[in-house]
């Protein structure tokens, strides 16, 4: 059994069924992200793990112990909130020491642990400040230290970075991951930001309408999405509608253009399917070998600096593709007829 084990978790608020049959096992020391749009149920699952919501049914176990009905203050779980939630009447040190104090630890033990935590987050000199005297990034680091101070079994992070500026967000992202690795603490991280989820996690749970669509490594999620929602929610995606001509041989019709995928397709002959491709695997010009080649016209050019994103109008829709900037080669002008190539292997097939 996994260290943190969630089985058949369900939650309804009145008629609203917000979490449906949620299953997940998190190994000790693992960093797992819940990724999804707002209202997908990711925060509700986290709050049930924390003990702030009672599941309608299902079970939550940590290290073999049933937590489902235990009150939040007896779960030994650390929680970091989106809006910091530091106690405004306590100094940084008192905030960090809060969990130890309510547990009845001695002054000396508290002091040394608080010092340790301040060291960990690099705010040693700010221990006697009040929260309102700190920047957002500093406050969130204190909140992290506060959650970690009582040595929780599991750390829960509820969109901890979304209230911060872009720059601080990235640096704190790295810091959280570093601290998590150093302490080896089992962590669940809730976010709606795919970049955060992909860059930080060991595994990502993509959630949609109360259901965990896919649970996999960031690499898998990005490159091998199993549902149309995951494919569309994570990263930019080109979708082309196609008709299956021969499922066994992998032949489809993109508008009027016949395309051969060289592999058997899940759909039946005559069905509509979607072909999906990330912008970075589409190349400009004709590539030979295992490539699907489509003809089109340049519809739009976005110069983004190191990358140029080009939109090409093709049969069945538009394709976005990324090319690297090259100083000696200016981007093509609008309306130019071009050919684009995608490798068979990388072209994803999704149900329409």
């Amino acid at each position, binding site marked *: 059994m996994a260290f943190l084990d969630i089985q058949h978790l369900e939650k309804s608020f009145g008629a609203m069924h917000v979490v449906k049959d949620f299953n997940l096992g998190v190994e000790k020391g693992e960093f797992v992200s819940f990724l999804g749009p707002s209202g997908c149920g990711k925060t509700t699952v986290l709050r049930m793990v*924390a003990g*702030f919501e009672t599941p309608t049914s299902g079970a939550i176990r940590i290290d073999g112990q049933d937590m489902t009905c235990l009150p939040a203050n*007896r779960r030994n779980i650390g929680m970091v909130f989106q809006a910091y939630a530091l106690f*405004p*009447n306590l100094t940084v040190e008192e905030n960090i020491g*809060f969990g130890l104090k309510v547990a009845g630890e001695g002054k000396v033990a508290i002091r040394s642990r608080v010092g340790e935590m301040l060291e960990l987050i690099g705010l040693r000199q700010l221990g006697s400040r009040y929260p*309102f005297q700190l920047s957002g990034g500093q406050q969130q680091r204190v*909140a992290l230290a506060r959650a970690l101070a009582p040595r929780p079994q599991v750390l829960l992070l509820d969109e901890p970075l979304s209230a911060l500026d872009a720059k601080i967000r990235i640096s704190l992202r790295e810091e959280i991951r570093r601290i998590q690795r150093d302490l080896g603490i089992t962590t669940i991280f809730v976010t709606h930001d795919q970049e955060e989820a992909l860059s930080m996690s060991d595994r990502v749970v993509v959630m949609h309408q109360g259901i965990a669509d896919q649970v996999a490594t960031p690499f898998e999620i990005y490159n091998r999405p199993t549902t149309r929602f995951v494919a569309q929610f994570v990263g930019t995606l080109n979708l082309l509608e196609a008709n299956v001509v021969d499922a066994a041989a992998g032949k489809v019709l993109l508008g009027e253009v016949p395309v051969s995928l060289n592999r058997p397709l899940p759909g039946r002959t005559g069905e509509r399917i979607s072909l999906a491709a990330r912008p970075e695997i589409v190349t400009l010009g004709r590539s030979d070998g295992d490539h699907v080649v489509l003809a089109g016209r340049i519809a739009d050019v976005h110069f983004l600096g190191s990358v140029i994103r080009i939109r090409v109008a093709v049969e069945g829709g538009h394709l976005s593709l990324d090319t690297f900037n090259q100083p000696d080669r200016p981007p093509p002008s609008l309306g130019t007829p071009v050919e684009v190539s995608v490798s068979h292997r990388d072209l994803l097939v999704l149900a329409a």
Partner: protein
Amino acid sequence: MTTSAVSLPASLRPRQVLSWFGVAPFFLFALLFLILPTLNIVVGAFRNAQGQATLENLGKLFSPSIQSAFWISIELSLLTAVLGCIFGFLIAAAITLGDLPRPLRNAILTFSGVASNFAGVPLAFAFIATLGRLGFVTMLLRHWFGINLYGSGFSIVSFLGLALTYLYFQIPLMVLIITPALDGLRREWREAAESLGASGFQYWRLVALPVLWPSLLGTLALLFANAFGAVATAIALTGSSLSIAPIVLFAQIRGDVLNDPHLGYAIAFAMIVLTAIANGIYILLRMRAERWVK
């Protein structure tokens, strides 16, 4: 801004002069109808009938009758402020944290707005009609429960009756002021405390009450001042049978008792000092409370 005006000092710009005309009436008004009358009282308290400086008037405050009037006033104001704070807090806590239906909360807040302004003469009438000798509740208790309220020494024109009546505007005022403060207690604070292992009691002792403390004490001071300056309710309720400071002053001004205007000055001055202290505490603590709230 026109470029030609930039070189002139700010105070000399014609537009600026015009703006002074916009605020001048306010200052004139405040001077004539607020500041000068108050100063007149303050200065008068330190002068005798011949216009010489003296502390004699203030000394008269310590005559037994005046002193007892002030004590009753202070006791009454303190009692209704403390009880108003406690009951107002309980009601505000019930509607903010108590999981009650939303419309009820709005109804109570609206009613508090009405009740806190329903002071003065009509309030006194309402209480006479309810707890007076022939009042609604008095009769109810007698006929249904066989309790003779007035036989047990209660009277609406007593200290207790006045306190009960004052609470009618004290409690709603507390509800109105403390509800935003309770709303300011963020749900995450409680959740953070719980996840760190704190019990509900520990959360209130270590976080919620310390955060609310300045607001609570500040409101206590405000309620004190509010009760201390209330005259109309007391007069309409008791006539002048209960001798509290504002009623004594009222009688002094009317010339009903002894016609010594300088004793009046002294009483008025003492009232200013007491309410100013109370309000000063309120404003000070209010600022402290707002320090935490962004």
